[in-house]
């Protein structure tokens, strides 16, 4: 296993280098730059002034020189400075500043979704074709198909505007808020919106996987041995049924860090998703590069984690 992990880490380093080249190269092809808005909104800005601002941003240097400066900086933990979203602020500290709120939202909604989806999926599989199974299936399709944007707005209208139980958006009430209750109240709606989709998705996976597992010979053997049904399902069935879910969770790991741009936009939740969107719209290439590289790193770690967890869950798998 150790050799496997070391080999994968080596491959990941090479992959990251190639990804950094790709990310940097693609962004150079995008027309326009960070000074376009300034140039167009103020005809009095002279070409010399724009050239001076370009020099300050390092844009007067050739692309390969800029890449090497940036890549070398990344190796030392310096991802460069933001051009437009937060002018002059370090990219890494900007990303790390958004990370806690992103993790808070994504981890809570994912854990909540799992806590609901796993028992619901198991029940639906065990009582296949029952009313419960049909209800779970219908609600799952509803949850997967429903536009997050619309659902989020409906929740705001109902709970924040009409009932006034919860706030419309944000992380905390300005000035007077910030205590645990206030933070929790602000979390409820975005977590609910995100969880609904995840519950729908996860419960479908669990149900399908459990249905496959429950047909296996070893399950029949366990029952024939006289084991109680709960023991058969949870000890023998669930462990095998979780394997596809682990794959899914491994791929979800980067999403935990990259956020959910639509949910964050509706609820004005300052997470990574919204930061990425703002960086693209405002042509803040250092920030875009930093976030993409960070996300690539997390995808690689997530894949490695999923592969390692396979071996933990399924003793037949050895590297």
């Amino acid at each position: 296993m150790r050799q496997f992990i070391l080999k994968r880490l080596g491959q990941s380093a090479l992959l990251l280098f190639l990804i950094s080249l790709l990310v940097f190269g693609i962004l150079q092809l995008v027309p326009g730059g960070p000074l376009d808005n300034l140039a167009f909104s103020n005809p009095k800005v002279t070409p010399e002034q724009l050239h001076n601002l370009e020099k300050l941003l390092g844009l007067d240097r050739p692309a390969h020189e800029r890449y090497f400066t940036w890549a070398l900086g990344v190796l030392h933990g310096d991802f460069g400075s933001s051009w437009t979203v937060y002018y002059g602020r370090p990219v890494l500290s900007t990303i790390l500043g958004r990370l806690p709120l992103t993790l808070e939202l994504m981890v809570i909604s994912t854990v909540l979704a799992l806590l609901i989806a796993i028992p619901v999926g198991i029940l639906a599989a065990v009582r296949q074709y029952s009313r419960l199974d049909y209800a779970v299936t219908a609600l799952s399709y509803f949850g997967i198909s429903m536009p997050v944007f619309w659902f989020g707005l409906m929740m705001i209208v109902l709970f924040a505007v009409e009932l006034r139980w919860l706030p419309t958006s944000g992380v905390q009430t300005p000035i007077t808020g910030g205590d645990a209750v206030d933070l929790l109240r602000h979390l409820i709606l975005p977590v609910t919106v995100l969880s609904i989709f995840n519950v729908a998705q996860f419960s479908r996976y669990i149900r399908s996987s459990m249905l496959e597992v429950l047909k296996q010979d070893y399950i029949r053997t366990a029952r024939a041995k006289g084991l109680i049904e709960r023991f058969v399902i949870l000890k023998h069935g669930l462990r095998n049924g979780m394997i596809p879910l682990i794959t899914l969770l491994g791929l979800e790991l980067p999403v935990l860090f990259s956020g959910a741009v639509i949910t964050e936009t509706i609820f004005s939740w300052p997470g990574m998703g919204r930061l990425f969107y703002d960086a693209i719209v405002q042509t803040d290439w250092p920030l875009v590069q930093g976030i993409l590289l960070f996300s690539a790193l997390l995808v690689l770690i997530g894949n490695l984690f999923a592969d390692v967890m396979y071996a933990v869950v399924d003793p037949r798998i050895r590297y």
Partner: protein
Amino acid sequence: MIERRRLGLLAGLTVGAVLLAACGGTEKAVTTKQAASVTLGMDQEPDTLFAGIGSMMARTEVLGAAQTLLVRENDKPEFVALAAESKPTIANGGAKFVGTGTDRHLEVTFKIKTHNWQDGKPVTAEDARFGWLLYLDPKFPASARSAAEKLWDLQAVDAKTIVAKFMSEAQAVQASKGQHPVLKDPSEFADYKEWAGKGPVVDPLYFTFGDFLYPRHLLKDIAPDKMAKSDFASKPVYNGPYKVKEWVKGQQIILEAQDNFFLGTPKIKNMVFKFVKDSSVMIAGLRAGELDVATQIGLDLDNKPELDPLADRFNIHLIPGTKWEHIDFNLDDPVMKDIHVRRAIAYGINRKTIIDNLLYGKSEIANAFIPDWHPYYKPNAAKVVKYTFDVAKAESELKDAGYAKGADGFMAKGGTKLKIRLQTTGATLRKQTAQLIKDDLKKIGIDLELEFLVPKNFFAQSPPGPLHGRTFQMGMYTWLASFDPDAEGLYLGSHTPTKANAWAGSNFPGYNGADDLIQQADLKAENVVDESKRIPLYGQILQKWTTDLPVFPLFLRVSPMVARKDLKNFRPTKTSAPETWNSWEWEMPAKT
């Protein structure tokens, strides 16, 4: 005995009456309890709070409350003295021409009112000189250095007196050769290379040229290229009614009132700018009572149906402002260079229908590059040639151009159908406007082809897009008009983008028909600083410009501003001034 009782009764009644009167007087003196905070929603977050860096409107909104300028534009539009004792003008002697011949130059004197920075240190003239030098430092990422560069020197004569000295003709030529006392790089003075014979350098907004106030005592030890990264950029100290208390990135900026603000203590203790990205959520915030104001950078006119139900609790201001939507004609295009074709298009577009159908009837037809509420337009309104919708006139113009209607209903000349391409961006309003224009022009026999481009491509300079590269026939977009009409920047012939000048310049039509008038109005010092001469010159420019029709103005854009009905002294602005410019005067009762 009886008399004593009467006297006693009388005394008692008198005392009682006095007490009652006092109670009544005390009741009148009780003021309504003010709200602890006013929350403003906007869909942008500033990139920095360092004045002079960046160009986001969100920054301007926050600085409107945090910073007090010497002289600033208000909502009317007019320029008022706030941190200065008075607005220095030629008329009141605050500004004057000094010297003779090529040494003649404009000097503007500002007297600073006695007041302090938000940390209690006094604001002095040295702070202005420091700021001016900072602007000229190439390592300071100033977003617009043009104002600072027009000055040869900015002196702190004493603690309260600033003298801004514009360049004389001789000094401008010296500067173009690298002999400016502060900024040495000649490329910074490229405009002054050929200044010989053109007189002194001036600016129509000369009365704002002391506004380089920065707290020198806080910034002098920070290198200019590090200032954008400093704490000052997130938590600045200025001289305004509200001080930045906390900027929670991605969430809100909280400002607190300064009790000793020199123009009057703000009544509302805190001001919060909340970043709400989605307009529907912003409206939900208003409905739920979480937001008291939606600024002009939160909503657009498409939100009007959602805003109408709020009219019982909120004032919904729909004011045509400074942005004017228009169509540029490329005067070097073989079809568009014909004035008859341009006039046909102008007469053939029904702007009222566009406004009624797409803008809820809340906008106004634009007739020139200056809005009709502007002080330069009003006295000259009669000189502006107006193109009222008239199909018959449109068709007549096309006939004068030699076109005749073919069997397919479209005009043609020499066997070639009159087909024109209109390019613009893909924003919803632009698409809808373009479609209505296409329908209108079809009725007069013009086949209009529509092309929608991503803004970055449409406005690109290098490599040039259709505007800068001047490959367009008709281009539709918005300009932002300011107090200074700046015909020079937009419509002087030498500001046409060409390959030779690396496609720089904003005169996309390539118009040069008013060059003489523009040079007199915008480049001749005596006219530039004297509105009694400049306004009539602009009257002539407007007449020539609307006659030659290099551009067809369409309508003024409208940005909704929403504020609680009980928020007193909130002044929605049609100018470039932020709504927060007079925030110390705001009053809002606490919610019960």
